[in-house]
């Protein structure tokens, strides 16, 4: 592979970066991200499946935003006019029933939500949906609570039961795994870009063993992450060829990093 990639000594770096920018833009336009930003589609399907299976009026996954100490609605299932309003909204991590689950790590079902002061009535009214019954369970990543999954308004019953609670726990496990994996991939992307930039700027005698070991440590055996490893290896090989190649590599990475910055800011929930 290294031979195939051997760069032309007269490579026009500016031209390369322009081409790369164009290539990445066209990929974006075709809706196929180079690196998936998150597993939103998977989370959506988990929430939808849970909502239907439980016979619930609505369902949602909320994730902790640690920096702002709030819970954010990540995905939701239910009447579309309400779910649209919900996505991206947030509230303090110790408020409402989701906040209770966040603070205790314990699942709970309650059937008198309107009399329940844990439930943030004002927030519910603001999005036009005030449920009667709620079942909520934590999303756990090891010892950490990373969010809350909830189903609202059991159809044909006044409250959710123990079996519902147990089953929602299984859905929550799947959701937590998906979130974990997606965050791990994001971390790897960052490590890859930062690490390779450092490599290119560093002493030519230094190899990229350190970066690869960082990648190795956090890797799951998924196809996507294996792709990333291969990419890292490729850049390593190119940069080992000489100063010009290393410079070209740096330019490519800079363009890519800039591109990522410009696209992620518009794609993340606010």
């Amino acid at each position, binding site marked *: 592979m290294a031979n195939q990639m051997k760069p032309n000594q007269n490579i026009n770096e500016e031209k390369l970066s322009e081409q790369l920018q164009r290539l990445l833009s066209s990929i974006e336009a075709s809706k196929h991200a180079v690196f998936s930003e998150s597993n939103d589609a998977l989370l959506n399907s988990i929430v939808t499946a849970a909502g239907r299976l439980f016979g619930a009026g609505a369902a949602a996954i909320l994730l902790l935003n640690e920096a702002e100490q709030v819970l954010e609605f990540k995905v939701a299932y239910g009447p579309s006019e309400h779910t649209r309003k919900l996505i991206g909204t947030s509230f303090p991590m110790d408020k409402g029933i989701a906040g209770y689950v966040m603070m205790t790590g314990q699942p709970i079902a*309650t059937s008198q939500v309107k009399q329940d002061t844990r439930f943030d009535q004002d927030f519910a009214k603001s999005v036009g949906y005030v449920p009667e019954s709620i079942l909520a369970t934590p999303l756990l990543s090891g010892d950490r609570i990373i969010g809350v999954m909830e189903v609202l308004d059991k159809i044909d019953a006044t409250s959710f039961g123990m079996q519902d609670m147990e089953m929602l726990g299984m859905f929550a496990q799947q959701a937590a795994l998906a979130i974990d994996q997606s965050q791990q991939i994001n971390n790897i992307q960052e490590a890859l870009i930062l690490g390779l930039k450092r490599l290119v700027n560093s002493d030519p005698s230094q190899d990229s063993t350190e970066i690869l070991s960082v990648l190795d440590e956090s890797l799951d055996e998924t196809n996507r992450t294996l792709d990333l490893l291969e990419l890292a290896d490729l850049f390593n090989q190119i940069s080992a060829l000489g100063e010009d190649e290393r410079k070209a590599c740096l330019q490519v990475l800079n363009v890519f990093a800039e591109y990522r910055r410009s696209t992620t800011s518009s794609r993340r929930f606010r």
Partner: protein
Amino acid sequence: MSEEPLRPAWSQSFTADAIQELPAYGPFAKITPEWAWKNSTGKGIRVAVVDSGVEFDHPALGDCVRGGVVVEYDSKAKDNYRIKPDDQPMDVSGHGTACAGIIHSIAPEAEIYSVRVLGRNMGGRAIQFAAGLDWAIENNIQVVNLSLSTSLEEFFGLFHDLADQAYFKNMNLVSAVNNMPEPSYPSLYSSVISVAAHDGQDPFTYYYNPNPPVEFGAPGIDVKVAWNKKQYLTCTGNSFAAPHIAGITALIRAKHPELTPFQIKSVLLACAANTRRENK
């Protein structure tokens, strides 16, 4: 999904269809709830609620809350936690107050101590929990309500050691099982009294499951409980089943202080609603 329903949930052992009548033999058949706890108020028994705190001045608690501690995670501290006294405890969510309220309603003269291990800290939850249990062991607590558990494999040994220490110090740990049918600690250790929810409402009606690990089923579905900020709520969860058994355990211990933890468990089995006793 397969035709077989998703298997269960510890609480499934206590549905009306699943409960089995159990024979009692010899002297065990003579043990009755009247003998075990009649006229007992739990007087003098020290009960710790290891949880989100207990709202000490909640009207549902009378003046049974005698103090407690807050356990905080601190990565810079020795063993990664700090313990602070908490003479007038508060509750960060309501979960602990609910458990304390149930215990107090059953054992009104038991002394309750709040051991707050749940809260805003995002890391070290299992460490806080273990430290809270350790505090109870070191402070002459007789009954500990644990409506929480950890599924982290690396804490198996630590919690097992703590559960053994408690057992050898003549303490009863009463633990709600996880809401998922998977291992959780310390709720599934044999020295612990493990509890899941059944859908009855009578606080003194509980069942024994002859197919452990979960051994007892107590009310935990649509239970009216005390909550923080002087409120009451209707809640469902194994969390609310355990304090029923903790309360009954306090009653038995107050009336029969000579009994050891394993004898207490035998008395609980003998008095379960599905045990076939003499003259029942």
